[in-house]
């Protein structure tokens, strides 16, 4: 049996783009998405760096390319079994598929910021996450964000680069996200002072450094090199942050009206379950393990099982899109015997 059906687990940016490419190559991709919408985390975002593209219009464009692709929403994978050729898959909605290859595009989850108890997420009135802020940019609904904040603080590396939180790796997109959001907040509240507390600023991508310079030069965003160690709430409900300004070598304190926690990216909780169904490997960081991290990032250690996007590690949107296209080609080559 040589099935033209390709199972794609996850309907985020990676799954959507891979499905479109596979469809154009003549395959029958089937997207299985656990939530009730396509687009994953990006669908809930407001604007994407570095072009400040609208996230919802990107998802709209991408969804427009999925005509002819089967999409199951609110559906998960129940079992996957390897056959002599291809895989037999049962979905939570009872559908059975015989497919030629599997693409894991299961993405990531945001660190649960309430686990860093010292930052008071879920306890103090004016503490939100990067994701909450994007939601507010989209909807304008969040009681935690005050009307005229005079001080807004961003804390980088919340739950990333943190061995105690069990997540030692750098989430890499949050530095840039913080600067993007800092600028957006300055534009909304020109009278406010915006403070970024960072350990290291990791602005590696095209135009990222430009954002940093703009934040400094055009918006007067303050950058303090020190990790916030504790946050309290005072009698007026304002948040009080303590950090060390490590460059000047003294403790600093800031009374802020809003605290934004840059929650990091973690592997999805389904990762080990999905991996074990097809006997793929999970890496030491909890993400899926690629055959190598240089030349075969899209390939698992098992034939017919491929990866795209943040299921193998933290990725930006353009990286994810590029990987999705690469994975589609890898799957094609595998199925025509070029692999």
């Amino acid at each position, binding site marked *: 049996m040589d099935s033209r059906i390709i199972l794609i687990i996850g309907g985020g940016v990676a799954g959507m783009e891979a499905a479109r490419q596979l469809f154009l190559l003549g395959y029958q991709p089937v997207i299985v998405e656990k939530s009730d919408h396509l687009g994953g985390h990006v669908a809930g975002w407001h604007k994407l760096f570095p072009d400040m593209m609208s996230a919802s219009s990107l998802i709209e464009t991408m969804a427009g390319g999925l005509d002819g692709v089967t999409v199951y929403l609110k559906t998960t994978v129940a079992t996957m079994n390897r056959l002599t050729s291809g895989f037999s898959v049962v979905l939570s909605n009872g559908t059975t598929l015989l497919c030629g290859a599997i693409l894991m595009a299961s993405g990531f989850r945001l660190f649960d910021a309430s686990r860093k108890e010292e930052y008071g997420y879920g306890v103090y009135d004016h503490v939100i996450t990067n994701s909450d802020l994007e939601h507010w940019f989209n909807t304008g609904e969040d009681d935690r964000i005050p009307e005229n904040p005079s001080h807004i603080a961003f804390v980088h590396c919340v739950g990333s*680069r*943190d061995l105690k939180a069990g997540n030692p790796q750098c989430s890499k997109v949050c530095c840039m996200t913080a600067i993007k959001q800092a600028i957006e907040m300055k534009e909304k509240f020109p009278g406010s002072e915006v403070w970024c507390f960072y350990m290291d600023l990791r602005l590696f991508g095209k135009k990222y450094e430009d954002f940093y310079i703009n934040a400094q030069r055009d918006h007067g965003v303050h950058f303090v090199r*020190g*990790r916030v160690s*504790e946050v309290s709430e005072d009698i007026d409900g304002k948040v009080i942050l*303590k950090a*060390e300004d*490590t460059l000047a070598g003294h403790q600093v304190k800031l009374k802020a009206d809003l605290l934004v926690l840059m929650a990091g990216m973690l592997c999805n909780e389904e990762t080990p379950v999905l991996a074990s169904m097809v006997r793929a490997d999970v890496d030491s960081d909890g993400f899926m393990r690629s055959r190598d991290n240089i030349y075969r990032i899209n390939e698992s250690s098992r034939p017919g099982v491929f990866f795209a996007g943040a299921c193998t590690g933290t990725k930006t949107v353009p990286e994810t899109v590029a990987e999705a296209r690469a994975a589609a080609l890898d799957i094609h080559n595998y199925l025509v015997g070029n692999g």
Partner: protein
Amino acid sequence: MVDFGFGLSKSSAVRLDQVDLSLYRKLEVLEPGVRTCMSCGSCSATCTAGPWSGMSVRKVILNLQRGKDVSAMMQNCMLCGKCSMVCPRGINTRHLILSLCRIYGERK
């Protein structure tokens, strides 16, 4: 010798290739966690003794790595444990300080 009313100034630059690291090396053995410090400043930010006495675990580690005497600063530690709570690298700062006390004690 002529008194010009001015003299050669002493440089405060640390010569990294000539630093005496013997104390730091001993500490590495007793508390290997010291190597993983990334100077984020969480410990110093939360330090109970810091604002009054200048105590800072971050500075203790860094100065030790630069061959400086940190015994005076370290004596200000109250062993309250707040720095252990906040260290993102999970360094046992309490054991680090107690180990350093032991190293200085053995030198006397």
